[in-house]
């Protein structure tokens, strides 16, 4: 075929493609960097995966985009004494497979989610027992007065007892990406049902016609197709050419360009996720220093040296192009328990860092492997590369191990790390959540992502008290104290909160409500 002929043909081709797309129903195609980790709602506590779960599974309480709570499977709830709650369940709700939803399912879900292997156990760890009073009433008893019970309820996913039992899927099998029945099949009460999930390729969802909230649906989509596109450039190209309707994150460097496109809008906003670095506090010998019998990270001076070595402003200005807020706390502004006056980051002071290292007995530094994801957070690999340069400057010999998120998460979850990057959005929007998940190890259900096993007896104790103190002022004081000790210990190094940047086609999408969790909830999507 001659060249003009080829061009003509391709033009004709495009015309036809466009025509077929128009003829279809309202299909919402969206994309992010990586695939969901699995469909088991009681596993894989990861942002995009959790959002996918909440499209499919009902919870007793649902969290609105403005972070307030509204009834979902429970229509009302009341506290009858310090530790007892009565939830009245919605009647006439069915699962996607047609099974009716009853109190038994809530009890079963509690038992399943509170298994030790469940990555979501933290959300309900304060609960002592869940009893079915009748088909549509459950009684929840907490171990102690729990001020955050309701806040955690949006992370308590309800599964179908009958369906799970039929398929012998009670046991939660830990590990990202590893498949088993519950991870590969979903049967919830949520507004969308899974049509198919082809791993690493697409998740197809359709509205669940018998959803209890069908009459008040806020979305208008007939089908949603989620496609992971790892390559930033390909993802941008796909949005520009209109093959997808929305995608996130927009690579920071491409924001100006996308804003200049008439058919694309960039939605930006603050995110509640805090990116931080963690150390191995536990091992007596650093993984990278076999035979030495030493773990430099056990010395607070070394950890402080690391904190002073990081040029957070530089990372913000250059790597993040301004789209980040450097931080000194493990929680973001907007999270209950955030302490404005304590948010000052450790100052960037490489000389001080070198002095501290020398004082600790490592004037020439030491070798360490730095574990990083390369497809999870905004510019994660670039941040880590910049970190390597900064740490090398104070004499640390860093080997960067940047890999895909599921490998990274599996590795650090197994504590197989000396120094790592992680990001955290408290699922309950309360400071106790990071204390429990990241900063303590002892209380039941805690330390799921405390990959370096930081543990200070005072913080452990405070964390338990915080979880049981109802009085807000007293509770806030306890949180302040815990954060102060953690900061003094340099338990972790908080880096920044990244900014949200979503790219949306203005010609096909009417509205997508952006939430401070960096992911798209389909019930807030309307198409033109």
């Amino acid at each position, binding site marked *: 075929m001659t060249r003009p002929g080829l061009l003509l043909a391709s033009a004709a081709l495009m015309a036809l493609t466009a025509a077929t797309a128009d003829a279809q129903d309202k299909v919402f195609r969206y994309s992010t960097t990586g695939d969901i980790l699995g469909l088991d709602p009681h596993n894989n506590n990861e942002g995009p995966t959790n959002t996918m779960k909440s499209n499919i599974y009902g919870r007793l309480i649902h969290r609105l985009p403005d972070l307030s709570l509204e009834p979902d499977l429970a229509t009302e709830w009341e506290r009858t004494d310090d530790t007892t709650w009565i939830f009245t369940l919605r009647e006439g709700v069915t699962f996607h497979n047609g099974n009716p939803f009853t109190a038994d399912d809530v009890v079963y879900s509690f038992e399943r989610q509170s298994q030790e292997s469940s990555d979501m156990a933290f959300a309900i760890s304060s609960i002592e027992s869940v009893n079915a009073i009748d088909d549509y009433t459950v009684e929840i008893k907490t171990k102690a007065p729990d001020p955050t019970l309701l806040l955690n309820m949006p992370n308590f996913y309800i599964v179908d007892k009958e369906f799970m039992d039929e398929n012998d899927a009670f046991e939660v099998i830990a590990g990202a990406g590893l498949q088993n029945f519950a991870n590969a099949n979903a049967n919830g009460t949520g507004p969308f049902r899974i049509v198919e999930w082809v791993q690493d390729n697409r998740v197809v969802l359709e509205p669940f016609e018998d959803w209890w909230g069908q009459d008040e649906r806020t979305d208008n989509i007939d089908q949603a197709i989620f496609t992971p596109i790892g390559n930033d450039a390909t993802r*941008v190209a796909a949005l520009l050419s209109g093959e997808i309707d929305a995608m996130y994150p927009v690579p920071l460097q491409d924001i100006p360009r996308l804003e200049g496109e008439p058919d694309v809008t960039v939605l930006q906003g603050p995110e509640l996720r805090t990116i931080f670095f963690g150390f191995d506090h536990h091992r007596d010998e650093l993984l990278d220093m076999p035979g030495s019998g030493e773990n430099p990270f056990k010395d607070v001076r070394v950890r402080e040296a690391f904190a002073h070595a990081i040029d957070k402003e530089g990372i913000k200005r250059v790597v993040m192009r301004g789209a980040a807020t450097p931080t000194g706390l493990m929680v973001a502004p907007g999270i209950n328990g955030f302490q404005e006056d304590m948010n000052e980051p450790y100052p960037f002071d490489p000389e001080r860092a070198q002095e501290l290292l020398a004082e600790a007995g490592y004037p020439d530094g030491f070798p360490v492997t730095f574990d990083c994801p390369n497809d999870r957070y905004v510019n994660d690999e670039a941040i880590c590369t910049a970190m390597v340069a900064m740490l090398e400057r104070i004499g640390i010999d860093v080997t960067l191990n940047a*890999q895909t998120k599921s490998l990274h998460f599996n590795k650090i979850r197994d504590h197989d790390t000396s120094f790592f990057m992680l990001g955290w959005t408290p699922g309950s929007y309360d400071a106790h959540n990071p204390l429990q998940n990241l900063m303590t190890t002892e209380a039941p259900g805690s330390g799921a992502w405390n990959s370096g096993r930081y543990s200070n007896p005072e913080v452990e104790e405070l964390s338990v008290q915080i979880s049981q103190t109802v009085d807000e002022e007293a509770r806030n004081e306890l949180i302040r104290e815990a954060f102060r000790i953690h900061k003094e210990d340099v338990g972790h190094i908080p880096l920044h909160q990244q900014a949200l940047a979503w790219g949306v086609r203005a010609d096909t999408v009417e509205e997508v409500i952006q939430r401070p969790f960096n992911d798209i909830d389909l019930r807030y999507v309307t198409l033109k």
Partner: protein
Amino acid sequence: MQNIETTVELPAAPSFGARLSGNIKAFLDGDVFYSFKRSPVTIIAFVVTMILFFCAIFAPWVAPYDTYNIAGLNLMDAFRPPAWVAGGDATFLLGTDDQGRDVLSAIIFGLRISLMVGFLGVLIAAVVGTILGLISGYFGGWIDALIMRIADVQLTFPAILIALMIDGIAGAVLGRAAHAESKLAVLVIAIAASLWVNFARTVRGSTLVEKNKEYVQAARVIGIHPILIMYRHVLPNVMGPVLVIATLSLAIAIITEATLSFLGVGVPVTNPSLGTLIRIGNDFLFSGEWWMTIFPGVALVILVLAVNLLGDWLRDALNPKLR
């Protein structure tokens, strides 16, 4: 890519007992050098290759900045455009990347890694392949059958796949951290493992021809040791094709390394090779920071092109039929 030996012709056998060095000298003095002088493209390719080799070997002295010394990077220098573009800075001729690396220096150091991996890979492949080819051709019989069947299996899997597999398996066996440190070695071995067959098959073919020549038969009869016969009589005669294959293989090896790095399984980002630079720069293509990927890309293409041109010329020059 495995086929390159099929288009290589054997050179006419040189005089009895020519030694290796004498052999090379002979073809530099002779027709080959004449054809070199007659081809301006080849001369340019040769000069370009030499310049690139020189830069790579003497990178620490040639490059304006030492991009290996990652502690020397300054984030504040990031995203500078090339010197002649508005906002550019004469201190960074080709601009800087997202980490504040001088692109020109990064290319030069990247060339060093690409060439080193390529060279070592081809060298190992050439030595192993030549030895196996000699053995196979000279002794024949079951050992020949064995080596050639292994070669058949090898031919089934293209270079990139073999390299990927070896890299993946090394990662699993060595553990991730150790793997990162031995990355270069793994790359070299992977590339060598994927290229040796070309040498083995060609050398075997040549050896079969030489073996039946009268002078070799004579040497055998008077009881000269096979190793000596192979070294003195057979080896010099296969050096021509081996050189051609080595040159063309070098181009393949460089592309393979770049591709692996592009796929993210090559050298670590803290010591970028050309492929890594292109992969990182690729993310900035749309946002206007084209220099981060275009320049390393151009450098890679120029390098491979020059090496390919040399290989082509060598093949034609050594192929009497085309002259």
